[in-house]
């Protein structure tokens, strides 16, 4: 093994080993557990940054493990995986800090953090997966590792949500498996690195390949919460806030979106898909999801549920961008939204968690004047929300801008229409929250004031959202700089030669 392969393995191990150790850490050894978690996550960021640097300078990271003929596990570091891996690792660090603060004093923490670490390992695995089988492996493991987190509270409601989550996720996984096998029977084993199969297959197997594409998208669409496969997501809100944050911003939903990107860009390739003519289907579903999620979000009074429906809507921007695969600008918009949506949504969920944990606020109708009690939290929330609406200079605008440009370049004016309507709807469900909390008058005492202290809430709960909110603005403000998510996405798109 060369150093590159060691790097890939140690990236995975840097959270896997702490996770395994944490399972054995006694409940009361709080410091040890936190230390392990933080060391692991910081080490992982360092390693991933090393990998990013390597990738930028053209180094090829690859490690293979053949299982049986035609089936091999392949980890591969390419610019796209670097994007997702970096996002996950950075947000993991923040979420860990947040979770430590959030779960202070609650039972079963070793269990929680153990699965938490495994979950991130698996997410990074998805990022690094170099072929469909490896992707499938981590994709299924993601379901397994997130399930205990969703039902962590152990209530009947959470069990019910967990069951639905499993049914959705595994059904998606099963469809995906079926499609992967079918694809492999036709085109043989392929790596993501090959970027699309020879178009001669299109001549012979056009219909089958189109059907397989649809099946693959259904498989990953469950996690990406494309309508009508989104049912599990709002229910999964019963999980603790850090978990929701992780599910929505980093792990599950993003894994699905990332899968769509991989399938479109790497498995099929732009040319083949254009020949097959199935992309409008993806774009259409994505558009419907964007609108449907926003409209449903409007009706929610529960803050986390509203955020959940907002996720459904926002994640489909990625799919929408990718569906215009022949337009580099649209692809840039889709890809960069992967990062941007994660940053914004994690901020929102952190803040929602802070409200619940500090004042017992779960509903929007209870939020009047809350910004006066928790100004920093609400400031972060506002930044996240404005980002979602797409107000410059937040990152949300950058994504929408590129998506719109790409849509026009493809001659699809409806993309711009969808963006406009969705922005309006986003404003309709986010701005009232902001005005209520900042300018509303407090109605009676808070539902359940759990924390009174020097700061508005525990410092470990307050810092992560502030950091992510700062990134939301900063990453937007320096979008065009040499080092920014957008710059990296441009690098990716250049690599694909679009």
């Amino acid at each position, binding site marked *: 093994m060369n150093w590159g392969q060691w790097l890939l393995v140690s990236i995975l191990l840097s959270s896997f080993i702490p996770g395994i150790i944490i399972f054995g850490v006694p409940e009361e050894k709080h410091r040890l557990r936190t230390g392990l978690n933080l060391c692991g996550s910081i080490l992982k960021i360092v390693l991933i940054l090393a990998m990013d640097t390597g990738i930028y300078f053209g180094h090829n990271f690859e490690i293979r493990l053949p299982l049986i003929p035609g089936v091999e596990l392949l980890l591969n570091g390419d610019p796209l995986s670097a994007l997702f891996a970096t996002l996950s690792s950075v947000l993991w660090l923040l979420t860990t800090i947040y979770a430590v603060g959030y779960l202070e004093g609650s039972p079963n923490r070793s269990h929680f953090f153990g699965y938490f670490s495994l979950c991130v390992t698996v997410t990074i695995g998805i990022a690094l997966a170099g072929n469909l089988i490896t992707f499938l492996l981590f994709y299924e493991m993601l379901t397994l590792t997130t399930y205990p987190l969703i039902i962590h509270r152990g209530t009947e409601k959470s069990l019910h949500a967990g069951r639905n989550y499993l049914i959705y996720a595994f059904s998606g996984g099963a469809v995906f498996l079926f499609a992967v096998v079918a694809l492999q029977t036709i085109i043989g084993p392929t790596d993501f690195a090959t970027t699309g199969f020879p178009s001669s297959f299109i001549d012979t197997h056009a219909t089958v390949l189109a059907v397989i594409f649809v099946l693959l998208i259904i498989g990953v669409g469950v996690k990406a919460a494309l309508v009508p496969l989104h049912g599990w997501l709002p229910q999964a809100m019963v999980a603790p806030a850090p978990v929701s944050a992780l599910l929505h911003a980093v792990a599950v939903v993003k894994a699905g979106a990332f899968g769509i990107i991989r399938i479109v860009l790497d498995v099929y390739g732009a040319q083949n898909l254009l020949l097959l003519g199935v992309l409008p289907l993806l774009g259409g579903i994505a558009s419907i999801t964007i609108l449907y999620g926003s*409209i*449903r979000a*409007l*009706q*929610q009074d529960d803050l986390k549920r509203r955020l959940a429906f907002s996720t459904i809507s926002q994640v489909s921007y990625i799919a929408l961008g990718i569906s215009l695969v022949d337009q580099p600008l649209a692809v840039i918009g889709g890809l960069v939204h992967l990062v941007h949506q994660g940053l914004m949504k994690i901020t929102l969920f952190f803040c929602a968690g802070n409200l619940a944990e500090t004042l017992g606020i779960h509903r929007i109708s209870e939020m009047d004047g809350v910004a006066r009690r928790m100004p920093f939290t609400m400031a972060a929330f506002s930044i996240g929300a*404005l980002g979602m*609406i*797409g*107000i*410059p*200079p937040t990152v949300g*605008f*950058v994504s*929408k*801008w590129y998506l*719109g*440009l790409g849509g*026009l*370049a493809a001659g699809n004016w409806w993309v*711009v*229409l969808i*963006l*406009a309507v969705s*922005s*309006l709807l986003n*404003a*309709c469900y986010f*701005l009232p929250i902001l*005005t209520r909390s*900042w*300018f509303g*008058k407090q109605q009676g005492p808070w539902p359940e004031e759990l924390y009174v202290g020097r700061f508005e809430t525990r410092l470990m709960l307050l810092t992560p959202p502030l950091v992510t909110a700062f990134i939301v603005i900063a990453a*937007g*403000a*320096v*979008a*065009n*700089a*040499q080092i920014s998510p957008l710059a990296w996405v441009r690098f990716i798109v250049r690599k694909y030669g679009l």
Partner: protein
Amino acid sequence: MTPTAIQTILHALTLSLVTGTPLLLAALCCTPLQKAAARFLPCAAMPAFLAIFTTPINVVVEVPWFFMGSRMGLDETGRIFLCLTSFIWFLASFSSHNLLRKDKGKTHYLVFFLTAMAGNFGLILARDMLGYYLFFAVMSFAAYGLVIHKRTADAAKAGRIYLTLVMIGEVALFTALIILAHNSGSLALEDIAGVSHHPLTLILLFIGFGVKIGALPFHGWMVPAYQSAPIPAATVLAGAMVNAGILGWLRFLPLGQTSSSQGALLFVVAGALAALYGVIIGLSRKKAGAILGCSSISQMGLMTVIFGLGLLDYNAGISAAPILILYAVHHSLAKSTLFFGYELIERQSKPLSHLQMAAILLPALALAGLPFTSGAIAKTAFKELAVNLGEPWYGLSVFFLPITAMGTTMLMLHFISILRHSKSTGTSKNAEHSVIFPISLIATLTIIWLWPAARHSASHSLAATTLLQALWPVIGGCLLFLSWQRISFNKKVPVGVQEKQTGFEALLITATKLMQEKKWQKPQSGRLHSYRHRLIPHLRRTEKIMGRWKVVGLSYLALCLYLLFLLL
């Protein structure tokens, strides 16, 4: 480093300071240093003055890493607008300073005020589309905080309407910008020039900036907002921020380089209607702020008409642009002076003196186009434009301008009479702010006369025929007002329009009602559950039957025979 490089850096520094200083102060206001920061509030506009005098025209500073590649610079139009805007902001910050003495929501106010200021300056300096859009958005959203500053029910309602419309404007603008950027292939404002405009873009831009200037279907926010915002805030809204809309049109539909007859018609019709509509609704209002808001709707309508005329063809554009700017300067100065005058009554303990009344009357009648005022110059310029355009525009303007002038006169007199009857609420006798109104007044009365670009129109406005033409509508307006007042004060005209829901609010409420959660919820999971429960006994029974020896034996036999049959 070469001198040019140093110069470039210096220019970049100056230009960044223009927006950076208010932002920095805003940030400081969130910290314990708030008190000190508040003291420096009037200084926030200083770098803008610095930039006006030091930065040469048409220097463009590129900041490629910022946002999507940012470009800053000052061109001729920009400099005029920056001059005007920074002046008004400067005065308003003085006046805010007084306001803040005993205000509880000081922090909020300061932050929003300074942020809006930064946005307003920034958009003037921006030389790329997204920079403009960015600062425009910053300004619009920050102004929301100013609108609802008083936290009354009225303010909240005004804020809601304002926010709704701002959002609609933002989205329209965003869409328009995407189309523009797509068509021009670049983000630089200079590159828009050659782009042919799709009618859709024109409509979108009309909406996007029309919201800011209160163009007709999007005027709903203006009256309640001016009425409920604190006066310094209303001043900047009316004097400085509205110009962002005009500047936006000038930037994105550069006059003299764009022409579209359909677009022209849209702008002219909407503007003319707004000019009349503003007057009509204004007369029914009983609050000074509201009346000024209505007047803004009307005046901005006139500017929309000018802009629309400029869109007719390239030549018209070239002549309309300076007139539009002239009108904007005139209106901003006059309107903010009126607001400062209005502020006096809120500040001082005694009622307005006759001198003060007369002083307020001057800018008010300037708006109506009283001879020897800036208004007369602006109107003269307008008329000349119409003359140049020929029929039918000239004929229409002959008919139209006097009517609006009369209306504005009536409106302004209404305003003055309201001021006269309203009670003073303030306690202050501070000399500091009493300076603001005179400064503003002097500026209103003199600047246009001293302005070289307006010299031509200024001299024309002094011609006897022009004087007469300008005078009779004012006099007519006065007479009409007097007669109207007699009727209305006797009859106590009901103030119906004021309390009604605006169209957008009604729409919003209906939309929310339509989307009741219950209608969307599916009872599916329950049904599935019961199916499952009904199925279970069947499953158990079948399994039981399958466990009987006879059944097993028979299937055993059958299987054996079947296999035999198949294998033989």
